[in-house]
């Protein structure tokens, strides 16, 4: 079956611009997660959706970051006024439901470069 997909695979933007990153989870998975991975580090939790609602956004670094999942499937991570420090790979993952009992399947990520 189809895995988690993310678009675009690469995004280069200028400092101060707005970007949107898209995630399409595995069909039937109600839980969706965004992580950020910097070079040489493990993924870092950003936000968790159960269905349409953001159940935990404690990992978002500041109010320039926002994510939505309006119909409980596709999610968009939005970053306003991008900074060079936002450069990283943004990973999306989905799981059957949101408990540590279920495995999370990751997408290939979007590599964001802020120049």
């Amino acid at each position, binding site marked *: 079956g189809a895995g988690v997909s993310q678009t675009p695979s690469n995004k280069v933007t200028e400092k101060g611009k707005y970007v949107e990153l898209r995630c399409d989870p595995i069909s039937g998975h109600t839980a969706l997660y965004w992580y950020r991975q910097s070079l040489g580090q*493990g*993924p870092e939790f950003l936000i968790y959706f159960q269905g349409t609602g953001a159940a935990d956004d404690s990992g978002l670094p500041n109010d320039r970051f926002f994510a939505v999942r309006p119909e409980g499937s596709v999610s968009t991570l939005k970053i306003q006024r991008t900074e060079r420090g936002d450069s990283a790979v943004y990973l999306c993952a989905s*799981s059957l439901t949101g408990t*540590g*009992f279920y495995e999370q*399947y*990751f997408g290939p990520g979007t590599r964001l470069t802020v120049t």
Partner: protein
Amino acid sequence: QQPVQSPQAVILREGEDAVINCSSSKALYSVHWYRQKHGEAPIFLMILLKGGEQKGHDKISASFNEKKQQSSLYLTASQLSYSGTYFCGTANSGGSNYKLTFGKGTLLTVNP
């Protein structure tokens, strides 16, 4: 809060064995193991759950010591395809056990 992985890197010849360790300072609900090749998505390998249940690949084994909050991943008779960075992700006991906190990874290189 981030789990500590050891070793940071290991180099093997094909057919050799390796053990990767993951240690947390918090009470754990589950430990999730992933392998990531350069430029690719992390691939799920195993979950070890509090209480002893395991889910994952037949050819990879792991252990979970709940009291010590430690997990180990055992790679036996390594193949070239095992090369990559291995991450453990820990889910803490309590209401937020959906949230995985990852270690910094262990780089495994398998040479012919």
